[in-house]
Each structure stands twice: as C-alpha cells, then as structure tokens.
C-alpha cells in the first residue's frame, strides 16, 4: 500500500530564514511562517515521508511522545492542505 505524497502547492514559494521557514502563495500574497517543528514536518513530507516518518523526525529532535507528535503532524498537514500550501501528488 502506497502512502500519500505531497508537494508544495502551485505557485508557493519557500525560504529558510534563520530558524523559520517562510512560505508565500504568489497568487494570494499570503505569507506564512513555520517554526522549527513545522519546518521539520513539512520538509519530511516534501522528501516523500509519510505521517509516521514526520512523527519519527519530530521525536528525534524534540522530547515528545508519539501520540502528541502524530496528532500535531496530522493537524499541520490538514492546515497546510486547507490553505493550499501543499497538495497531494
């Protein structure tokens, strides 16, 4: 069974600035910031990882339990999709 893969939304730009990843939708002009845990999650997703991989990546960097990490990952993915910052491939 293959997992869902994601890519940046069309016309979404990203840039790492110090400890923040910024995203902008060129069409709407909306400008977003992702903190470090959000950046790790997004980069893991864009590298082809699934939700479990994101959870593992977060737990490798932060002292966080698996359930909390998974819940946060799912929430972020939902929000990124709703805002069309990422889209399913």
């Amino acid at each position, binding site marked *: 069974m293959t997992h869902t893969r994601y890519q940046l939304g069309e*016309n979404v730009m990203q*840039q790492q*600035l110090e400890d923040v990843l910024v995203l902008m939708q060129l069409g709407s002009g909306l*400008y977003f910031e992702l*903190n470090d*845990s959000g950046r790790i999650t997004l980069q893991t997703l864009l590298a082809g990882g699934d939700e479990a991989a994101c959870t593992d990546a977060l737990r490798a960097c932060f002292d966080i339990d698996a359930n909390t990490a998974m819940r946060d990952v799912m929430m972020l993915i939902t929000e990124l999709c709703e805002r069309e910052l990422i889209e399913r491939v």
Partner: protein
Amino acid sequence: MQLRLNGAALRFEGLIARQRVQSTLACSFLPDSISPLEPPLSARTSIPPTSSIRTISAALEGKPLQLRVQHGLTESYVESARVKAWIAADGSTADLEIADANEVEINHWLFGPLLILALARRGVFCLHASSVLHDGHAFVIVGDSGAGKSSFARVLDQAQVNKRLTDDISPMTIENGRLLLLPRFPQLKLSQQITDASADYAVSGLWALEAAKLDVPGSKRRLRSTDLHFRLMRHTVASRLFSTSDARRWWEFAAAAQQVLAASDHNYQLQARHASSNVSAAMLELYRTSMPTDQ
C-alpha cells in the same frame, strides 16, 4: 508546532494599489532618461487608429483590470481599456499603445509600470523607499505612506548629515553577493544634482519607519530575518503586476537581500511625526541615536 499567518499585516494583496506619476520630464522615450542602465531599455509608443482602440475597449468591457496574454516571445498586460502594453520577457523592450494620450500620460506609463516591470525582468527591483549615503554605503528608508521616508531623507540632506540618494523609488539588485542601489530612477521629486548618475552604492542598512502616536515614545529594534524579508517584499513597487516568473525572481531577490542587510537593519517608531515644529529636530535626534557608528 505553529503555522503563523500574521493576518492583515502580512497580506500583499492589493499592495501597490496606485501608481504615482513619476515624471513629467520633457522626453517621450526611455533610453535617454535612464541611461546609463545597460543594456538600455528601448521603448516605442504608438497611438493606434481610433478604430483599433474602440475594438480593444469593447473587448475589455467588464473584464478584470489586469489581463495577461501571450504575445509571441513577449508577455503583455492590459491595465485599462485605453492602454495596451507589451514588455519583452528579458525586459529589453517595451511597447505601449495608448488612446488619446498626451505626453504626461505616456511618461506616466513609461516611467511607471513599464520601466518598473522591465527592470524586474532584469533582476532590478524598485522599492518604495528613500535612501541616503552614509560613509560610502546606502541606507534605505522604507515605510508606509506618511511614515516619513521622504521627510527623513530630506532632513538629513538639508542638515548636511547624509546626502540623499533617492526619493520614493529606489531600484536595487544583487550583484556578486552585494546588494546595490542604482539611484537612477527618473523622477521629479529628486533634484538631479544630488545624485551621481554613474555610481552604484552598496546597501548596508534598512530603516523601517512607522508613524507612532504622539504619546507613544519612539523605539527601535532589530528586525528578524523574516520581518526584513517581508518588508523588502511588501515595499516593492508594482509587485501586483508581476508575472509568476517575475514573482519568483522577486522572492529570491528578497531572500538574498535580507542576508546582506541582516547585520544592520533598524526599526523606528517615528515620534513627533506630526509636530511640525519639531519634526526636523526629532528626525535628527532619531538619526543620532540610531545610526551605527562603526560603518
């Protein structure tokens, strides 16, 4: 985990809602006025037959204000029913068709959107900013309308503290890792004798002015990289006219520029902005307490 959207404050939409008439210089074509930009931008203006304009107007009736269509190797946009313009993808040529135009209106288009877009396609982005020269480096002053950009630069210039380099429009580019100011945008707001038309200036600082209430004390703080990146983009002129490829260059420009500026940017609350008798003194004091002394 946080996805932060700073609401209205971080919204680019409708950013530059108007274009100012930049020039009423007594010339109709760009090459003479923007020299020594290399290669020069060649521009042609034409006033097509009335029947053509009527056709265009009819076709555009009720359509969105901006209309992008492919036109051979060039990308064109239409700003209004009376105006049709083409700019080459490499920013080398611009064509303008405008109905019933006088010289002032033609110059408005040539020295406004067309020149700014042509420059953007060459990697030169025009900030809505003034700038001054300090110890051989340019300091750029940005802020919303009414924040005091022009006043600040003028006060410093008149007090012979810093020479004013640009006013209102400040073209900048990245070259060999350096952020350069090209103080040659044709405009009447700035007296020509206070600029050296042949010089570029390395930009080493950015001041973001904000008008503060009179009862709020002035303050300054370093801008975070994200704030600086955002401000560089927010204060870019005509960004709403950028094509997707223009916007991608713009994004990369801002990212590169913020790296150069990160060490010396400042943010001011401009106190006493509206206390006219004290504006000059307040600005000079602001300058004295904020200008880096190790430049």
